[in-house]
């Protein structure tokens, strides 16, 4: 079977939760240490150090287009290292590189788990986590050219990630990949994570059973993840120190955190895709 499994989502949409649950599931439903330093099969596809090691050049010397053009080949080199399925966190939209080939190469891709979340909650979560102004975040979510971790100003441990707009991102993963994609709504994961994990296991092709799935669901319940973060912090968090990465873990929180005008602006920007995903 092809090795790469993409866990794809717009940022702040439940990607980390799914990866922790998958890690538990693959370990027989074991308890999760959110700061476990070694989850070697669960990494970011946009990790700069790994890319640099794979291609043999410092990406900090390269333009965003040069990096993007090289990434499919880098994914193939990564896949060729073997060792079974690799679960790669992805925030990029499903796009073509400047050379005209898909960023995520079908010849090494087993499947994608694509997670979507109500953009009104995404806006609130993003603004609160990074201390950004909500209107700035809303404008960014409408910008089809938005690049996260752009190198126009500084370099990050993560590569530049072209996100597209929120709608463009969702549409790209729903319609374009040339490998199987399971689209899950964050809201449905909250409602019934066991069902989401059963479908995930099926599309990835891993054998499991209901008891294991139930243990994985329990191990990654919001209150448990939040409790660990309160006690010891969270290594993946880039949030402001006063804000928890596992912040609320609910659906519809936007109702008490967005002004009516802000909520309306998001519906104006993303109405058709929100309708398609059942958010309005």
């Amino acid at each position, binding site marked *: 079977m092809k090795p790469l499994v993409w866990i794809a989502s717009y940022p702040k949409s439940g990607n980390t939760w799914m990866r922790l649950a998958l890690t538990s599931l693959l370990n027989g439903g074991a308890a999760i240490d959110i*700061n476990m330093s070694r989850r070697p099969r669960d990494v970011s596809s946009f990790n*700069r*150090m790994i890319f*640099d*090691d*794979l*291609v*043999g*050049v*410092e*990406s*900090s*010397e*390269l*333009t*965003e*287009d*040069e990096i993007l*053009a*090289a990434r499919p*080949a*880098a994914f193939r*080199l990564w896949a060729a290292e073997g060792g079974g399925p690799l679960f790669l966190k992805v925030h990029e939209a499903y796009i073509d590189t400047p050379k005209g080939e898909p960023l995520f190469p079908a010849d090494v891709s087993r499947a994608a788990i694509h997670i979507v979340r109500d953009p009104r909650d995404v806006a609130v979560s993003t603004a609160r986590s990074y201390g950004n102004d909500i209107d700035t975040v809303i404008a960014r979510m409408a910008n089809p050219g938005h690049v996260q971790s752009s*190198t*126009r*100003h*500084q*370099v*990050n*441990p*993560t590569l530049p990630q072209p996100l597209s707009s929120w709608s463009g991102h969702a549409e790209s993963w729903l319609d374009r990949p040339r490998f199987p994609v399971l689209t899950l709504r964050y809201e449905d994961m909250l409602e019934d994570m066991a069902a989401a994990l059963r479908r995930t296991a099926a599309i990835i092709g891993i054998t499991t059973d209901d008891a294991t799935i139930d243990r994985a669901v329990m191990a990654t319940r919001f209150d448990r993840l939040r409790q660990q*973060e309160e006690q*010891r*912090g*969270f*290594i*993946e*968090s*880039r*949030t402001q*120190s006063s804000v928890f*990465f596992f912040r609320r873990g609910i659906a519809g929180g936007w109702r008490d955190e967005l002004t009516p005008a802000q909520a309306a602006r998001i519906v104006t920007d993303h109405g058709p895709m929100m309708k398609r995903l059942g958010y309005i």
Partner: protein
Amino acid sequence: MTDDCMAYGLRIHTRIPLPQTLAWNGSAGRPPDLEIDRGSVPEQLPDLVRHTPFVQVSADGRLRFAIDGVLSVLIENGRRITVDTALPDDAPDLPSMLLGPALGMVFHQRGLTPLHGSCLALRGQAVVIAGPSGAGKSTLAAALLAQGHRLLADDLAIFETAADGRLLVVPGYPQQRLWRGALEALAITPGRPIRSAARLGKFERRVPELFYPEPLPLAAICHLSEADPSNPPGVSLLTGVEAFEATRRNIYRFHIAAHLTAIPDMLHRVAGIVRLPQYRVRRPGNFTDLTAFAAAMPAALGLGSEAR
């Protein structure tokens, strides 16, 4: 008289000007260690043992490095670099690629083992700030320069062994490369962008007056990363396997080097380096706290308060 230049102790005879470097000031009779010239570079080397979008390594140890539409470079025997490019001599891309990635591979071919890091003269000793791209090496180095310390090298740390057996760090050339965000925060006037293509916010910063031009004994290696909520800013000693592994990971482009030089030799050199103190350094995530952090670093590394 000679027009040759000097970087990391090498006498470099180059047809492509490298104004970032110093003029050769060693013996006039010593032949050049490295020749850089324009010429044609084959599209494909034979018998590839490593092939990435940018790098080809041939079984005979030759290395081709290329960026589509910009340049291709052939590196042979640690002695010769051939550059195939339509860029003019004064394009910033040329020194960026020659003094960075190409020179790193030259040192591997020569059997030296460069570490990926900035190197500073701190109170009469050399301290290497090592880490992957994005860790903040050059920015922390700039903050240390602002404290009156001197630069030995910006991105590659090259070692030699002194007659008394001590490990020395060899000075590179008097230039840093810094990102726009760091330049603005530290109120530094940028030089040229490092690439002709727009949209990359990384700039040259020449620092002839802040450069330390002599080899210095290595005092410590700092393995740098950004602090995060579960790992606050600070300095802690690394020992044993952890220290060894941290240093091995900071060998410049280890995965390519593994095809250019014997791995046991590289690991042997790492073992020599880790006899000296190794520290995990978690830097603050914001520029405001970085100045105070840099000011406290020499003491945190156990370096005395003598002369800078």
